[in-house]
């Protein structure tokens, strides 16, 4: 393989990897928006809490079960951080957003910014403001295909993110709760008349979105090996960009938007300038809002969840 091609593929892989994480977070934005038309700005911080939960599980494992296989540990990390974040997401909905269900949309939006500040500062007071290192739990094995190479953690990110996306697609399409979610997003009043417990559906949407973000957080902190209380802010903004890019309210749109955003950023950083990385992401947001506000998949999917 020519070195140029190899470099391009390598950058593409870098982009796809971080894109998977963006997609996982973007799903939560898009699902919540689909159901109650709220941009939940606290979602990025739920992602950050998810990363800290993952870090705590890793620490627990290292202190009490140092011999455990890393696959068992990974499974425990995912399950426990998902559970914790789902509870957190449900609680946030109940405490902060439910009382505002019939208030103007802007009230809930501003509340979500307040929740975001609350989560950031609560975590800062709990664990301190320093960067926390994440122990290397995944072996740093690299697989080589000719000159092209990828690492085990990248493989894990792909496998986890893709399987969760498939699972979510199936869940929304085929299960009773998934159908209720789609019905509520289409017309909340009609869904209520049909006997759907809309409040339960909304809470479940928050819980599922938060659980996905927590997996994103767990993968993120293991991939980069460090986490800080304000990491949710930028990651949240990027995922929000991805959700808008894909078409806010559309589940496949969020997946595609996240992945494309990651690729766009990586190629921009690799070929143009790395310090302009965030600029590329937000230029994309600006361009989408200007030229196609419904996003790439927003129009094709009138049924929004």
């Amino acid at each position, binding site marked *: 393989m020519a*070195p140029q091609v190899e*470099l391009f593929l*390598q*950058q593409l892989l*870098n*982009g796809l*990897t*971080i894109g998977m994480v963006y997609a996982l977070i973007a799903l939560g934005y898009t699902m919540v928006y689909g159901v109650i038309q709220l941009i939940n700005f606290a979602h990025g911080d739920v992602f950050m809490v998810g990363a800290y939960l993952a870090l705590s599980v890793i620490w627990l494992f290292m202190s009490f079960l140092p011999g455990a296989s890393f696959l068992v540990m990974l499974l425990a990390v995912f399950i426990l951080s998902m559970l914790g974040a789902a509870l957190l997401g449900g609680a946030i909905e109940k405490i902060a957003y439910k009382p505002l269900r019939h208030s103007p949309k802007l009230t809930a939006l501003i509340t979500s910014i307040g929740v975001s500040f609350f989560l950031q500062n609560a975590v*800062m*007071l709990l664990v*301190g*403001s*320093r*960067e926390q*290192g994440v122990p*290397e739990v995944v072996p*740093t094995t*690299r697989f080589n295909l000719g000159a092209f*190479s990828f*690492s085990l953690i990248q493989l894990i990110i792909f496998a986890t993110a893709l399987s969760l996306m498939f699972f979510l697609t199936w869940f929304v399409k085929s299960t009773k709760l998934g159908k209720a979610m789609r019905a509520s997003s289409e017309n909340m009043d009609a869904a209520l008349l049909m006997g759907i417990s809309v409040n339960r559906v909304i809470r479940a949407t928050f819980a599922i979105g938060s659980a996905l973000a927590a997996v994103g957080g767990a993968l*993120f902190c293991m991939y*980069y*090996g*460090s986490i*800080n209380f*304000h*990491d949710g802010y*930028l990651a949240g903004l990027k995922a929000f960009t991805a959700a808008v890019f894909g078409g806010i309210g559309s589940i496949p749109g969020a997946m595609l938007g996240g992945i494309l955003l990651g690729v766009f*950023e*990586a*190629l921009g*950083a*690799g*070929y143009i*300038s*790395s*310090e302009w*990385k*965030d600029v590329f992401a937000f230029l994309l947001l600006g361009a989408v809002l200007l030229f196609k506000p419904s996003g790439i998949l927003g129009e094709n999917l009138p049924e929004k969840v």
Partner: protein
Amino acid sequence: MKSFFRVLGLLSAVLLFCGAGDKNEDVVYIGAAGPFTGDHAYAGVGMLQGVQMAVEDANIKGPVFGNTKVKLLSLDDQHSPAQAVLASHKFVANPDVVGVVGHFNSSCTMPTSAIYHEARLVHITPASSNPEISRQGFDTFFRVCATDDIQGPAAALFAFSKLGVRKIAIIDDRTTYGHGLAMEFEKKFRELGGEILSRDGVTQGEKDFTPLLTKIKSERPELIFFGGIYPEFSLLIKGSKKLGLESPWMGGDGVYDVVLIKLATPKFAEGTYATMLGADPRAVPEAKDFVARYEARYGEIGSFSTYGYDAANVLIEAIRRAGTKDRAAVLREVRSTKDFRGVLGLINFDEKGDVVGQSIGIYKVENGKFVFIEEAKP
């Protein structure tokens, strides 16, 4: 840590009241400003403890003049230029503050130096190394640490002649400090005849450096120099080794921190070089007593504790000599400081306020620790 400073803040407020109530005893304040919370808190707190120790030592010696005791007023600038400006205005507005030790980061010292200059309030920075600050010509500015136009070239010379590298990549974090340091390094390295393969910038707080590192890997540099601070540096080191990029890394005083090795993990940090302003206080015999006393009080000595201590002592001695709360008199006395015996040696200031006879220590990570290699004196 945060709650500790809350308590400290409350305590200083209480002390302020006590001071005002007590007619027989007067107080004069020295300000201290730096990042006492946030991502630079570790280094900032190390500096603050140095200042605190100097204040306590001074009061053991007795009142600075008449029946006036010296007290510390610390304000957190959180490594943010906006907060730093706010803090400087608070110091300026308090007539009992006659001098400031700070700020810590060059990006905070730069804007505040103009405010202190206008208010004729002397300030001594223990850590800001950007050479541009003293080139502004403010007579209220002093600095006890070395500058980046000494540090950058010393690092470049070491890399070129001692390590024998010729092709390097340079990254910086685009801050007043990081960018300035990288520029000085680059200038000297080119002068020596080395080749700069690429020059990149990153954003502070960023996590994903894989695209940049993938690009740098394809350039095959013999060394990568980073102008910036340890959180980004640790991610760059770790990310590069995971990509199979084996080139060693080098950074300035902003990365010289034990936490760097913890964050980057000892395995990956091994072989990383860092320059530091001045020699290691633990390697200087005169500083032995200070290091022992410091460590008994606060635990492991921070990278800038010595500079905080020295800067505060220069200021306190000037107050003693001035014998008044008059800011102009204190400023005059700081300016006339001659052969002041600091922890790391004699302190004299040149006409720009920079310390004379700066030296740079060069360190390498070996077995998970920073090991002192040599002292570079320009």
